[in-house]
C-alpha cells in the first residue's frame, strides 16, 4: 500500500512536467490532454466513501483520464475521453468511455452534439471529476455525491445548446437541452449498496432527458441558473429468498426527476457558489410502488485566492433524505448529513496542485437504504453520529 502510494506520487512528480501533446492527422491538429489525482482520507470513527478510512486512513482514492480531440472545420469538432477510478469499493480500475461525441455549431446560439455526452446540470455536474478545476478536494456531497457520479455524469444521446447574447444590459443566456440513455456502472454506489445486501445487481439504466438554462447577468460576475432532469429507469437484479432461491426482480420508475437551482458570484479573487438540488423517485413493479425517495441538498461555498498559488475555501453542505415508502416492507425512514468544510489549495505550478481539507460531519444519511457516503458494508458494527475527516489530495493535468 505504502509502496503503491510512493509509486503514484513519483509518477505524479514526473508527469507534472508533461506538456500537452498535439500532432497532425490528415492535416488537422489533434490535441491530447490528460489528468490524474491521488487522495488520502483519514476519519476518526466511521469508514467513509466505501474505504476503510478510520484506522490509518486509506489511499484508495485515485482517478485519471485522457482525451484526444480535433477541430475538423470551423463549426465541427470531434473528440473522446477515457476515465478510470478506484475509490474504495467503487470504480475498481474498470475504465470507461467518459465522453465521445461530435459537435456542430451552426451559430453561437445554436449547436448540436451527439454521442456519449457529459450532462450539463448545475454549476459542476459535467466537471465534477476534474479535480484541478475546483478549490475543494471533494465537492459538496449534498449535491455532487462522488459515489453516485454514474447517475448524472453523462448520457448516450444528444444535446442542443447555444449562447444568446441579449445585449450589454440584459447579459447572456446559455441553454442546453439533452436526451439520451444512461447506464450505471457495475462499480458504482447503487451496485455496492445492493450487492452488500445480498442482491445480485444486473444494472440500472434508462431514458434521461432535461435541460439547463443559465443567465450571466448584467451584474458583472453574477451567474444564475436552473436545471431539470427527468428519468425513466429500470433496476434489474435478483434476490435470494430463503427456501426458494434466487428470484429475479425488476423495478421501474413511476416518477423520477431532479430539479437544481444555482448561483455563482465572482468578484476579484473571491468566488461564492450556492446550489440546491431536489431528487424525487417513485419506483415499483406493475404499477405498485415499492420505494419512494425524496432527497434534498444544498450548499453555500466560498473560496478566496490569497496568493498567486494559494486558495482558501470553505463550504457548508446540508443533505436530507426521506423514504416515505422504504424497500421490502421496511418502515418509513429519514436521515441527514450536514458537513462543514475548510480547505487549502496550493498550486505547485500550472499543472500540479495539492489540497488539504477538513470535514466535520453530523449524520450519515440512511446507509441501509440509499448510497450516500456511508455504507454498512464497511461499517458492519454500526455508525457513530459524527465524523471528522481529513482529506489530502494531489493532482495534475496537461
Amino acid at each position, binding site marked *: 500500500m505504502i509502496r503503491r502510494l510512493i509509486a503514484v506520487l513519483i509518477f505524479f512528480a514526473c508527469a507534472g512536467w508533461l506538456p500537452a501533446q498535439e500532432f497532425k492527422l490528415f492535416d488537422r491538429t489533434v490535441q491530447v490532454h490528460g489528468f490524474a489525482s491521488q487522495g488520502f482520507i483519514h476519519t476518526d470513527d466511521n469508514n467513509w466513501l466505501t474505504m476503510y478510512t478510520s484506522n490509518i486512513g486509506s489511499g484508495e482514492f485515485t482517478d485519471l483520464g485522457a482525451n484526444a480531440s480535433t477541430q475538423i472545420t470551423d463549426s465541427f469538432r470531434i473528440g473522446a475521453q477515457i476515465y478510470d477510478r478506484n475509490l474504495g469499493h467503487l470504480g475498481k480500475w474498470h475504465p470507461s468511455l467518459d465522453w465521445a461525441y461530435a459537435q456542430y455549431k451552426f451559430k453561437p446560439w445554436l449547436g448540436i452534439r451527439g454521442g456519449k455526452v*457529459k450532462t450539463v446540470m448545475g454549476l459542476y455536474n459535467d*466537471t465534477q471529476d476534474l479535480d484541478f478545476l475546483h478549490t475543494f478536494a471533494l465537492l459538496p456531497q449534498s449535491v455532487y455525491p462522488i459515489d453516485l457520479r454514474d447517475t448524472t455524469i453523462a448520457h448516450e444521446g444528444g444535446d442542443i445548446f447555444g449562447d444568446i447574447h441579449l445585449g450589454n444590459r440584459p447579459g447572456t443566456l446559455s441553454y442546453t437541452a439533452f436526451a439520451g440513455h444512461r447506464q450505471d456502472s457495475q462499480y458504482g454506489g447503487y451496485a455496492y449498496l445492493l450487492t452488500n445486501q445480498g442482491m445480485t445487481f444486473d444494472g440500472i439504466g434508462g431514458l434521461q432527458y432535461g435541460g439547463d438554462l443559465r443567465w450571466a447577468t448584467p451584474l458583472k460576475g453574477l451567474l444564475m441558473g436552473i436545471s431539470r432532469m427527468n428519468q425513466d429507469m429500470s433496476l434489474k437484479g435478483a434476490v435470494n429468498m430463503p427456501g426458494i432461491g434466487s428470484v429475479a426482480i425488476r423495478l421501474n420508475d413511476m416518477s423520477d426527476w431532479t430539479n437544481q437551482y444555482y448561483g455563482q458570484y465572482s468578484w476579484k479573487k473571491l468566488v461564492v457558489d450556492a446550489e440546491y438540488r431536489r431528487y424525487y423517485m417513485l419506483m415499483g413493479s406493475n404499477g405498485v410502488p415499492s420505494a419512494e425517495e425524496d432527497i434534498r441538498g444544498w450548499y453555500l461555498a466560498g473560496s478566496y485566492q490569497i496568493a498567486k498559488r494559494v486558495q482558501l475555501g470553505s463550504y457548508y453542505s446540508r443533505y436530507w433524505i426521506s423514504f416515505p415508502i422504504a424497500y421490502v416492507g421496511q418502515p418509513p425512514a429519514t436521515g441527514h448529513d450536514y458537513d462543514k468544510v475548510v480547505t487549502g489549495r496550493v498550486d505547485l505550478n500550472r499543472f500540479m496542485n495539492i489540497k488539504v481539507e477538513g470535514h466535520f460531519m453530523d449524520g450519515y444519511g440512511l446507509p441501509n437504504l440509499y448510497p450516500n457516503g456511508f455504507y454498512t458494508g464497511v461499517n458492519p458494527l454500526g455508525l457513530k453520529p459524527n465524523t471528522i475527516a481529513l482529506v489530502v489530495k494531489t493532482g495534475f*493535468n496537461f
Partner: protein
Amino acid sequence: MMKRRIQMKSFHVMFVALILASTLAWAGSVKVIANSSVSASAVSSDELKSVFLEEKNSLADGSHVEPVLAKGGAVHEAFVKQYLDKSDAALQTYYRSLVFTGKGSMPKAVGSDAEMVSYVAKTKGAIGYVSPEASAEGVKTLEVK
C-alpha cells in the same frame, strides 16, 4: 478658509488627472494583432471576447480566426483583464473545462512578443496581442472598438 478651498480644488484636479492618466495607460497597454488573412481592420471588444472564449471562430465579415495567448507577463494580464473580464487563473480554468468536457481546444500559447508576432504572421486567421512598443512587421494591427 480660502486657502483650504484652493487646496481641496487642487486635490480634486490631481485626483481626476490621476484617474485619466491610469485609464489612458490601461487602454494603451496592449496592441491586438492579426494574420493578414483577417480582412477586418477593427473588431468590437465583444467580438474579441467571443473569439478568445471560443464562442466564435469567425468575425462578422466571415474571416476565420483563432486566438493565440501569451504564456504570462504584464501584457497578458492586462489583455485578459481588459478584454476577457477574467484573471489568468480563471481563464486557464475556463479553457481546461472546455478541453476536458470536449467543448473546445487549448489555444496556442507563446512565450514572448517576438514569438507572438512570428506565429501570428505565419498562421492563417491567428489573432494575438503584444505590447504597444512591439514590432508588428508581417502582421496587421486591429483597432478594438
